[in-house]
């Protein structure tokens, strides 16, 4: 009597011996194999295929990102650093990151000298804060534009007044005339000088960098021609010669 290894061993052996030569045995084996294969395909192969496709997409993304990063590195490395610094200096002079009172006074004084007008009383005040939105893709900036309001009195005929307005519009920091009131060759001008705090810069490394557009380059070149040399005459001191035009009375 053989020892039972497990419960039902003899029964299984009986059924095996009874049916092993029959067609049912082979069919059941084939069906079992087919079912097992289908289960393997559903639970193992299809998930593996999905994983492979996901890895393939990640590989494509990574390759594109690496290409963009390398292109950005090449672009930045080939930039003319001197020109970049000069452009930045011009741009920040035109729109300073903080109140530039000396720049404002210099712009007013230089404009007055060139227009041949004299400056009377003036006062400064902090202006309104204006929200400005920019449309840069890779960089976002939401710092508002701020201004210094200046009200000043200018003595001069209409031709000189017009010249003064032209000169002040081409000085830095950039200004805007809000209103003017002229009577008897004496004009009260309300000006706004703009400034804007530097914003936090967020940069996405895989977004391609691009150089300044031709329009912006042209603008910076135009602004660099407006750069004001400091006025040699101290605007707060009286004129030393009769030919000098007194700036401030």
């Amino acid at each position, binding site marked *: 009597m053989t020892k039972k290894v497990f419960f039902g061993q003899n029964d299984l052996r009986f059924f095996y011996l009874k049916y092993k030569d029959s067609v049912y045995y082979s069919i059941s084996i084939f069906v079992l194999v087919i079912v097992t*294969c289908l289960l393997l395909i559903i639970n193992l*192969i299809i998930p593996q295929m999905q*994983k492979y496709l996901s890895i393939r997409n990640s*590989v494509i993304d990574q390759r594109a990102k690496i290409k963009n990063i390398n292109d950005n*590195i090449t672009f930045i490395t080939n930039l003319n650093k001197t020109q970049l610094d000069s452009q930045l200096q011009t741009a920040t002079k035109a729109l300073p990151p903080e109140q530039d009172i000396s720049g404002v006074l210099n712009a007013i004084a230089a404009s007055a000298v060139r227009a041949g007008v004299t400056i009377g009383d003036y006062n400064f005040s902090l202006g309104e804060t204006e929200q400005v939105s*920019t449309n840069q893709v890779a*960089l976002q900036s939401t710092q508002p534009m701020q201004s210094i309001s200046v009200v000043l009195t200018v003595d001069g005929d*209409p031709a000189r007044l017009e010249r003064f307005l032209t000169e002040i519009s081409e000085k830095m920091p950039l200004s805007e005339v809000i209103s003017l009131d002229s009577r008897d060759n004496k004009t009260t001008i309300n000006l706004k000088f703009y400034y804007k705090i530097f914003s936090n810069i967020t940069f996405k490394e895989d977004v391609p960098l691009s150089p300044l557009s031709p329009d912006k380059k042209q603008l910076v070149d135009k602004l660099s021609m407006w750069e004001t040399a400091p006025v040699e005459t101290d605007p707060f001191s009286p004129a030393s010669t009769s030919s000098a035009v007194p700036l401030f009375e």
Partner: protein
Amino acid sequence: MNNSINLLDYKNKVAVTPSSRKQKLLRRIAVGLLFASAAFSVVFFMLITFSPLPDLEKSRKRASDNLASLDKDIAKLSLINERTDNIKQILDNRTKYDEILSNFQSMLPAGTAVESVQMKEKHFSVVVSSKSLLALDTFLKQITDESTKEYAKIRMTELSTDLNNNTFNLTLNIDML
């Protein structure tokens, strides 16, 4: 002879017949599926194990570190872009009072002068004086001819006489386009 090999005597004798067509088909399907499952699982396993993704991630990190060393120049470029956008907006939107005055002055005939002018945004008010009404009339004709180019509205609000200076003063309120 073969029956004696199997000692078990069973009631329903199942004859051993050669495999039918359907059985052969089933066998082929089973073998095919088995082979396909094995082959695909091995192939996908190899593709996943030997994918270039880990190396690419390392390369990307190296490239990122290289780019990070150039962040000052990138910041400068972005600042220039930002500043020029704002500068362009200021320059486009500000009212050119000097040009307005210059155009206005160019329309003044001889013998007329601007006594006073107030300007704010797109509106300005001006007092033109002259010893001659004819000169003022010429000026009015000139300005109304030019009005469609620059001015949306011109209103004559006052015509007065200054007996001390023997002048006529014409007050105009003008809205720009």
